[in-house]
Structures are given as structure tokens and as C-alpha cells.
């Protein structure tokens, strides 16, 4: 029987809290523990490079129901360090499933725990803030003592630049997937700070050619390649230590290139424009965050995954707040006045989450003068 075949596993938090459960995929992993309230899309979440060095707790109790498959992957591998749910489905039920969830986690060596009171854990994180933790199948008292020591030596997320751990080494050109409605083929340089596959896909579906760029690509290289527009992708970690990238973005702003930033890309744009970022208590991770477009008053339900945010008061004149989170009023979008430069904190490429913000890709591409 399932429950008794599984070994015990546990999650230990830096404040000493301990959550015992059952281990579906063995191993030990450290990371910042965050929770995600999406009810679907666990594989997209796992494979989103923004989760580098994070352990993800899913609030939806049943994870793995529809299995896993290449179609649902946002990158070539899971990036989350550990995965926690109330119950994992051993055998999937969906025509699109290729590998069952627990097998996928084991194959990719992502330690995973079930049978945890996930709601208690989430409430703890909500009240105390996201914090460092370790998932493990090493559960003896000695193990615990050792792990606790190690845990406290782990770097905190604040101040931790992680883009270099997830970006690519080489440029890669991706051809359009469809003709789109533009009537021409814009060429977009997409900075890969840990980009989700769906960003390039959405651009290509609209008739764009995309070149994926390593994070350390210089502004000169971009200008030399003469991209029609620049996209700054999502990515993990704290944006502030990424000073070289911020400088590159600053140079790009000074050029006349249209720029569109998403998530980390939005934060980097904010920093490059002279603003500051700060760490949120437990971040926004889910598919139900309401964002209001301040121009139209329209509310869209967005997919979000970020632990840092742009500080509104730090932004210079000429930078406009375009979107705001209805829950906590944080900045969700900004734009440079009179320039085709804008960014959003959330994920218009969805995957997982609502498709309501796809229109931003149209807006970006149509802001590019055709040649």
C-alpha cells in the first residue's frame, strides 16, 4: 500500500519549524520556501527557471492528476529545488501525459514530500514570510542537527543574484511559428535571464523571429544585431546585484529600441531607470492575482511569480505606473513616457495561468515601427 511503502521525509525551516510527511522522491535540497496558489500548471511551475533555489509548496492538494509531458515544460528541466503537496497522484489520467508526476520528480531528482498539512505551512510562510528551508529524506535526530546548521549557512534570497545559474551560453535563433497579423517579421532579441519557453513562443506565434540572448550579452551586440525590439525575460533571484545587466539595460534604453520587460525583466528595467526594488514578505506566486490597468480601469487576472517588486516612490519623473495589483497595490507595470518602453511584473505569457494578458505581446510588437 502506497502510504506505507513511502519513507518519511520532512521539511525543516530556518526558524526551526518542522513539517513531517512522506517522501515521494528522495534527496535533500535547500532553498527559499515559497507557496504557489495555482490550481493547475505544476509542471510549468517546476520548470520555470525563476524558481531556481526555491522550494515550492502547492496549495492545491492533488498534484500530478494529469501527469507531465514536454508540451507542459517551460524549459528543459525542473528548476525548483524541492516540491511539496498534500497528495501526489501516482498514475496520471490525461491523454497528454507522458510520464507520471512522481516518476518525473524522481527522474529529475527533485526531492518531493506529500502528506503534509500544506495549509498550516502556507499560513506559517504567510505570517512569517518566505524563508530558507530544507527538504530531506534524512530524518534522524543527527541528520536534523546537521541540516539545521547547514541551513543557516545558506545564503538568503535577498542580495542573491541567480541569473548566471540559469541563463544560456550561446545565442539561438528561433523562427516564427505563424504569419501573425503584422505583415512583416520583426526580429526580437530576448534576453534569457531564465526565460520561460512561452515568452518566445508567444512572440513567434505573432510572426516574430526571436534570438535568445545570454544574460551577459552587451548592448553593443544588440545594436549591432539590429534587433527590432528587445525583450527582458523573467528570471530568479534578487535583481539588485545584477549590476552589469542593469547597465546594459540602461544603454539599451538610451538607444531607440522598443523594450518590453517581464517579471525580473521589469525589475531590471525599473532599476535601470533609476528606481529601487525591495523584497516582498512572501511574494506573489499564483494564477489569480488581479491587476488593474490604470489607463482603462480594466482588471485582468494574471499569472505571477515574484519575490521582489519595484518601489514606486523610487521611480524618476517620466516613468509612469501603468498597472497595479488590486490586492496589495504594488506596482505591476510601468512605462517610459513617450517611448515604446514598458514592462509588467506579472506573466502575460501565462503558462500556467490565465491568457488574459496575451494582448501585451500584440501591444509590444505593434509598437515596433515596421521596415
Amino acid at each position: 500500500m502506497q502510504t506505507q511503502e513511502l519513507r518519511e521525509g520532512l521539511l525543516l525551516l530556518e526558524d526551526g519549524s518542522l513539517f513531517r510527511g512522506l517522501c515521494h522522491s528522495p534527496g535533500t535540497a535547500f532553498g527559499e520556501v515559497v507557496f504557489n496558489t495555482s490550481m493547475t500548471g505544476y509542471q510549468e511551475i517546476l520548470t520555470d527557471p525563476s524558481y531556481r533555489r526555491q522550494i515550492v509548496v502547492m496549495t492545491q492538494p492533488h498534484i500530478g492528476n494529469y501527469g507531465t509531458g514536454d508540451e507542459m515544460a517551460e524549459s528543459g528541466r525542473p528548476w525548483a529545488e524541492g516540491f511539496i503537496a498534500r497528495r501526489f497522484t501516482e498514475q496520471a489520467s490525461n491523454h497528454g501525459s507522458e510520464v507520471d508526476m512522481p516518476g518525473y520528480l524522481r527522474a529529475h531528482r527533485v526531492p518531493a514530500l506529500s502528506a503534509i498539512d500544506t495549509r498550516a505551512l502556507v499560513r506559517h510562510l504567510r505570517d512569517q514570510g518566505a524563508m530558507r528551508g530544507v527538504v530531506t529524506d534524512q530524518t534522524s535526530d543527527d541528520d536534523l542537527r546537521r541540516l539545521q546548521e547547514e541551513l543557516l549557512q545558506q545564503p538568503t534570497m535577498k542580495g542573491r543574484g541567480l541569473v548566471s545559474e540559469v541563463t544560456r551560453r550561446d545565442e539561438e535563433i528561433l523562427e516564427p511559428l505563424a504569419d501573425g497579423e503584422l505583415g512583416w517579421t520583426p526580429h526580437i532579441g530576448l534576453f534569457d535571464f531564465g526565460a520561460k519557453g512561452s515568452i518566445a513562443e508567444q512572440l513567434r506565434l505573432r510572426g516574430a523571429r526571436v534570438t535568445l540572448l545570454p544574460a551577459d550579452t552587451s548592448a553593443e551586440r544588440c545594436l549591432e544585431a539590429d534587433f527590432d525590439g528587445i525583450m527582458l525575460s523573467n528570471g530568479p533571484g534578487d535583481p539588485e546585484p545584477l549590476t552589469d545587466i542593469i547597465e546594459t539595460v540602461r544603454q539599451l534604453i538610451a538607444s531607440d529600441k522598443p523594450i518590453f520587460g517581464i517579471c525580473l525583466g521589469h525589475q531590471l528595467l525599473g532599476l535601470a531607470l533609476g528606481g529601487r526594488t525591495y523584497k516582498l514578505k512572501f511574494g506573489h506566486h499564483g494564477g489569480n492575482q488581479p491587476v488593474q490597468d490604470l489607463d482603462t480601469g480594466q482588471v485582468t487576472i494574471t499569472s505571477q511569480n515574484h519575490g521582489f517588486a519595484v518601489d514606486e516612490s523610487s521611480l524618476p519623473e517620466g516613468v509612469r505606473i501603468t498597472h497595479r495589483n488590486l490586492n496589495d497595490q504594488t506596482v505591476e507595470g510601468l512605462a517610459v513616457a513617450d517611448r515604446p518602453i514598458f514592462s509588467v511584473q506579472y506573466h502575460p505569457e501565462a503558462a500556467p495561468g490565465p491568457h488574459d494578458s496575451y494582448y501585451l505581446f500584440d501591444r509590444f510588437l505593434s509598437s515596433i515601427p515596421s521596415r
Partner: protein
Amino acid sequence: MPKRTDIQSILVFGSGPIVIGQACEFDYSGTQACRVLKREGYRVILVNSNPATIMTDPELADATYVEPLVPEIVERILEKERPDAVLPTVGGQTGINLALALSERGSFEKWGKDGKAIELLGAHIPALKLGESRQEFKDAMEEIGLEVPRSGFARTVEEAREVAAQLGFPVIIRPSFTLGGEGGGVAHNREELDQIAAEALQASPTTEILIEQSVLGWKEYELEVVRDAADNAIIICSVENFDAMGVHTGDSITVAPQQTLSDREFQIMRDEAFAVIRRVGVATGGSNIQFAVDPKTGRRVVIEMNPRVSRSSALASKATGFPIAKVAALLAVGYTLDELPNEITGGKTMAAFEPSIDYTVVKIPRWAFEKFPQSSPKLGTSMKSVGEVMAIGGTFREALMKGLSALELDGSAERRAKRLADPLRLRRRLAEPNWERLFAVLEALRQGWTVEQVHEASHIDPWFLRELSSLIDLEQELKSADLASASPGLLRAVKEAGFSDTLTAGFLGCPMEQLQQRLRELQIRRVYKRVDTCAAEFPAMTPYLYSTYGDEDEADPSDRKKVMILGSGPNRIGQGIEFDYCCVHAAFELKDAGYETIMVNCNPETVSTDYDTSDRLYFEPLTLEHVLSIAELEKPDGIIVQLGGQTPLKLARGLEAAGLKILGTSPDTIDLAEDRERFGALLKEEDVLQPMNGTATSVEEAVEVVRRIGFPVVVRPSYVLGGRAMAVVYDEDTLVRYMEEAADVSAGHPVLIDQFLEDAFEVDLDLLCDGEDAVVCGIMQHIEEAGIHSGDSAAVLPPYRIGPFDLDQMRDIAQRLALRLGVVGLMNVQFAIYEGGIYVIEVNPRASRTVPFIAKAVGVPLVRLASRVMAGEKLKDLGFTEEPRIPGVFVKMSVFPFRRFPGVDPILGPEMKSTGEVMGAGKRFGAAFAKAWLGAGHKLPTTGTAFVSVHDRDKNALIPVARRLAREGFKLVATGGTAQFLADRHIEVERVQKVHEGHPNVVDEMLNQNIDLVINTPLGRESQLDDRYIRQTALKYDIPCITTLSGAMAAVEGIIAWSKEDVHVRSLQEYAEG
């Protein structure tokens, strides 16, 4: 956008009586709508014919019309009130159809002000039509590029055949504009097609049916969408049906959130749902959209949408904590989602978001097939369940197991298993959707079927089946262990999977106390979590709780003075909205009296399970285990069990034994009233008559008892609800047969046998008693003679044919009994007047079904008073010392689900069969009766042809009825005996043949629409078939049919009032003013 100021008054449509497909959920939605609109400062006018609703409480609206929801009457309300706007979308299909009918008549233009028509809020006529007309909907979907099942329309059976020939069998037949799929079905061959198509055409008010390519076996989903005037649209909840396509969603076990779609699949479905609501043009408010998905390919088709708040919205509200109806009402008056606070998070967040839930919700329907034994137990596209339970658990398994506990099913698991032991039967039960299919699935897995085999047979998704299979694994493990050998891991696993203590102890073969002790030692404990709309992302301010197993308890009980109120569980015939009304009133009143109120219930349709009805809500099964757990945590000062019907009463003894205080009448008194011998002795001491009676556990004993009493007798099993399996028996053969079958229902309990007081008048009396004073609240006389269950009989307040002396005698008896029994709270007595004597038929020391009706009629909040009394106050101090004045005549009429059960004889008897009731109010009996009759959904012909055929003993009484009908201009036709009898008395009558006399006969005449009214009292055995055929034809073709002579007399008075236009509308507030 802020709220609109260009409208001041809004007329809200209710949904009328509880029927299959339209139950308490519209009381919930209407109540929410009225409350918020009133709070926003609008003049709220409400019309609803159902007096047992909270929404018709006079304080919820400025003018409350308990009037029939028919255009002729509602138009008079429009004329009188001249509202600026109408809100039809919270009143179910009834509200929509009423709006469409009024629009057709031009009523909204006619009664508008300053040249402006009355505005429809929520959805406009084109949108309502588009959502409901299958033809237009299909075209619209194709226009926006969405796939719908291939289909064609038909207006005749021939056309239906042509369409079916193109599509290939099986096909699904769906009539337009009907409620809960009534009249539709699945046809597997031509013969079924002809039959179902004919019925469906008959059922559709527009004689339009859709013949649809079958997507049987596909997965079925529903999305609840809310949209505002600024075009913000959100999904409140996704629901996946456990049963594959082919079963009405109201009859399906459903699960929230959806479980087996990937994010990509789900998001595309979400996009399509928005596209649908935008294309249909639902301006503001809630809608639900159904999809079918081919499990093999993921291909998806749109099935239908409801452009209004629905049963699914109620479920979605309760499942997520998002109050859809309240929000929909506010959106209808112009607010946008970003302006409305999410109350659950205390306004920290706004209503513009999509709930995320971190638990699993299962809804299980409850059926009443046992009431309609001649009907097929199969389920299809026409809804048949009468109620439902919802259960919340950490996982699907836990929610499902809690749901099964909450269902309160009669009959033991062993008997069910035995019934399903036969492999052929089991296979059939898996393959054909039917009410016990879930049990068949479990049994098959138990017998070693693989998940694949069960899936093959049932098309239920393997995900659900594997979860069920793991439950069976746990069950087997428990069975092969005992308490000592069961590992802590196993015990934890079974409790987390939702096994009740009773079940677990049963499998382990140990006493329950020992199991509970062991669980405590192992710290396997039930904890309470909050339903918060946001998966704990924000702190929840509302104590809306469910139990699960885990580490942390969020209940956070207070140390206030508190009362726990036990609700009535799933609706069933005999226990419905009336009891929810009572529980809600207790919650309101005790809150006002300074108590913290704690509600426990598991019925998602109800007002009682709204998070703001009581201070704290536990959405939990009403079993002793669950209630005791809550009590242990909350430590209430008292528990109220007398307001929720039999469900909480059954728990009273157990709660008392656990040291909890039952408020009001003691459990011992409740038992005493149920206990034949003790109660008989008490009546004897008080010198009160009761029908001669006895009990029997065998055929021989029964025959012996009847030898003493004499035929006819009323027989019934003890401890049942709503007169279940109750019958009037006139001869020994029938008695023997009954006794042989009774063993099945009664399960070891004796059968009760009473002298049947033939032709007696029956009376319901409700009173309030505080132990010192007993005050009568109201006396209702049944219109039909004895032999018809009090829940089914029409009744009138005040009594219209009983002398003051008899009434006084009844008052005296009731008061004496109440004081003698020590009743504290409500009590109901049923009397019969038989050959000049007053007999007590039964005494129920609790809230009865008639309480809300009387409270509405006399304008006194009886349950509020009862709650105060239970909390220890005295009637004297509450100022309730005299029987209230009755400001008019109030007729109660019941509605029946016969049309849902083809083949059933629509005749009334001692077993209750009605699902709901309406009130008709007037200055005189005739007007009140006419309104009740219309409200119950019948036509009231004022001219035409009346067919009369009555039993010999009714013939004399027929004379005045016939004379008055003739005087009104009716042409009379009758079969042989009756025709001769009337002709002999110089009443003009035409003879028509009986069915067995050949053609043309009375049924031919009915089919040819030559008969407008049928008065047919059962003629006895020899013409039983004739009678049945006549009644079924009347039912099918919607010809008013009256089966008792007293009913006929009343109907004639109604007809006269209606034709003289002596029918006026009057609000409850006006009645109260006198």
C-alpha cells in the same frame, strides 16, 4: 463605476415552490440579492409564491408579495408598484421564463414610467433568449468559432427522426426553455427517439427540441463566470463531474476544483467561457457554462450555458466562499468587481479575483426513487434528485467519504452490497447511470475489478476510480487487522481518507470508544480549517470552517455565550426548506439576543450555509461523530435540535449522553411523543381520543391487530420520514402483502397500524410553549379528507369548515398536552374530526413543516420567539400571549414531481410525495385558492368543458359542484354512472365512454384538447386502470385534474373568484397593517 442612481425601485423575482431542479439555492440567491439591494438604499419589491423561504421574510424587502409567479398576477404587481427595474436572474428558470413572458406581453413597456420601459437588470431579453433557445445558442457558438456537438432542431417527431438519422444513435434530446432538463433524454434507438421526442416537444413551451450527437462518455465540466458592466470577467469555480456525459449535472456527483485537465486545457476552456458570456451578452452577474471533453483527444465542445445565477452558482459560492448572488446583485446595479470588497478577507482584497481553493469539494445528489417505485432508477438528462450534500475535505477521498456520511442514507451497506453481488446486476449498475452507481463502483473494486475494467463499463475517469480503489485498499487493510495490529500509519491514512470512526471501528471489529482512545494517543486529530477564497494567501476574517486531518487547527473558538444550531442536511421529500428557514431564524434571533451562533449543516443550497447567516459556520456532515467533534471544540452552552427536522432529532440522545445541553424540549419528551405506548397512555390519562392502534412485527400479529381495530387501517413502518411506505389498507390480502414488503423498509422496527378515520377532516395546529404558557400560533384545515399526507394536502388558514366549538376543543387539547409534555419551543399537533369526535393523530414536539407558512400568514416571527423561549425566556415577557389574528385567508398547496417520473400514477396518498409548496392569499377563500392553484403551476380554466367522474360515495357531494360549474358556463361531460346520476338530477351532461369501453373515450377527448378540467375521484378497483390513465394523461397534457371532491369544491370557488376578477395582489407588509 459606482452604483446607479437613476433607478430607485427594483422588483426581484423569486423562483416559486421547491421542485426538482429548483430548490433552496434560489432562496439563497434571492435572499442575498434582496439584502444587498436594500442595504444599497433601493426600494426592493419581491415576488415569490413560496412562503417557506427566507427571502419572503417581510424585513428583507420593502414590499413582499407572496403571489403566484405567473404573468397575469405579476403584471398586477407591476401596475401597482411601477418599479424602475426588474431583477429576474436570481429566480432560476422560473424567473427567466417569467421575464420572457412579461416581455412578450409588453408588460414592461406598459407599466414603465415617464415613457420609459421597466428595465431588466442582469441580462436583457435577447441574452436570456440566446442562453435558453438552443437553436440561437448553437448558431451563436458557431459564429465565435466554438465547437458544439453536431445537432439539429425539430418541431415534430418526424423532424426528430430525420435529424437522428443524420447523426446516428445514440442521440440526446433537449427541449428548449425547460427546467433541469425536464422532458429530455437519451435515445439509443428509433423507438426511444419517438417516445422521448414526443415528451420533449410536449415539455418545451416553444415546442422546440434539439437532437444532439451523443457525447456520452466524455468528461463533463462546468465553469462559473461572473462579469461586470466594465467587461471584467472572472471564473469563480471550475467543477468536474464524476459521472461522464449523459447524466444531468444536478444528478451527477461533482468535484471542485476540476481535477484532470492540464493548465493549458483549463485555460483554453476559460477563454472560451468568456467568449460565450460575451457573445450571449450577459451584461452583468453570474452565468455557468458547460463543456464536454473527449478524454481520448482532449477535443472540447460547448454544451450549454445559463445566463443567470443557478444551482451550480450556489454550489460554487459555498465551495469557494465567494458570494456569487450577492456580487451579481451589486453588479446589476452598476458596481464593478474592483469596487466590491471580498468580505472573506475582511475587505483586504477585492471581489475582482479568482478564488483559489486548497481543499477538495464533492457534491453528492440525494434521490427519492423509493417514493416512486414504478419509475425507472435510471438517470439521464432529466434531473431527478431532490437534494444534495456538499462535503469539504483535504482531498477528494476525504470529501467523498464525508459526503457519504452526510447523505444519511437509509439501509445498510451490507444490504446494498448484497443487492449488487449478482455480477450481471453489478455490470448493469456500472454501465447505466443510476442512483447507486457510486456504490456499484466501490463494490466492483471490492470484488477485484480493475480500474480499467470499471472505467470501460462506466466511463468514469480513471483518476476518480484510482482514488476510490485506494479507499478499497484501505478498507481491506483494516479488515485484515485489529485495533492492536493496525499500524499508526494505517490509522492515520484511513482517517485522512475520510473514514468515519464508526466505519473504521466496524472494519477493525473493535468498540468505537477504543478506536477513539487509540486515535487520541496517536495524536491523529481532526482539525478545522477555514474556507477563505484564497488558499491562505490572506488572513480569513470569516469563520467558515470544515474539518480535515492535519497539524494546525484554525477554528479559534471564542469564550462567548454560544448556541449551536443543527441544520437539516440534504433536502428530501418530507424535509426541506421549511426546516432551513427555522434554523436560519434561530441564528438571526439568537445573534440578536447576544449569543454567538454556530451553524452546522451540509446542504450547499441553503441560506443556513451562508457564511454570514450565523457567527460561525461548520460545513460538516450531521452525524454524531462530526457534531460531537465540533461541540468538543466549541463547548456551546446549548444545542438546538428541534428546528432541523428528523436529522438533528436523531442525534439528540447521543448529544445528551455526551453531556451536552439540548435547548428547549427535552430528548425524552421527543421520544415520548414517538413512543406509541407511552404516548397512548398519556392521551388516555388526558382523556383525549386517538385512533385505535397497535403494532406488529409479523403478518400474524398484523392480522390480529386489524381483527381488533377493523378495516380500513393506516399502516407504516416506525421511525421514518414523510410517511415513507405508509399506506391505507382496506383488505386482508393487501395487508399481508404490505407486511411482507415492510420488513425491507422497517428493518426490525415494528409496523404501526392505526384505525383509518375515513372521510375525517384533518387539522394541523402549531403552538409555542415555554413550559408555563402554551399559545396557539395557528390552525390549518386540510382541504382533502384524511388519507392524504399532511405535507401533500392542500390546507387553509384559518379553517373554513370547522365550528368554533371544535376549534376550541383542539386548542384546549393541544395546550394541555404541551404543558403536560413540558414542551419548551414549538409543537405541532395533527387532529382529525371523525364522526363528531376530536382525535389526536400525532404530536410532534418540534418545528413542523407548517411553521413558516403560519408565520408568514399571521406576520409573527414564530421561530424567533421559539428560539428565545428555548434560550430560557418566557412568552409573557416576549409579549406573545394570544393566538395571532389572521389578516385574510391563506391557502397552502403542494407541488409534485410526477412529471419527472414517467409511468408513475400521479395520485396522492398517505406517503408524502410533494417537493414544495406555495401560498395563495386573499380576502376570501376563492381568491386565495385560485392563487395557490396558479402558484402551484396549474391552469385555472374559467370556461370550457369539465369532465367529472366520481366514486359512488362522492356522488351526492358532486351535485353542488356540478351545478356551480354549469352556472359558470362549463359544459359537463361524464362517464356512464356519473352522467346518469347528474342527468337524473336535471343537470345537463354529455356522456363519454370510459377507456375500456372503446373509442372515442374520455382520454381521446383529453388528447384532442376537448377537456379543460378533470374531476376524477378514484372509482375503486375495477376502474383503477381507467383512472390512472386519465390522471396520467391530464398530467402529461397539463390539464388541471382534481382527485378529491373537497378539492373540487375548493377549485370551483377558485374558478369563480378568478373569473370574476376578484383576485388582487397585496404585500405581506400590507396584510400586517391590516
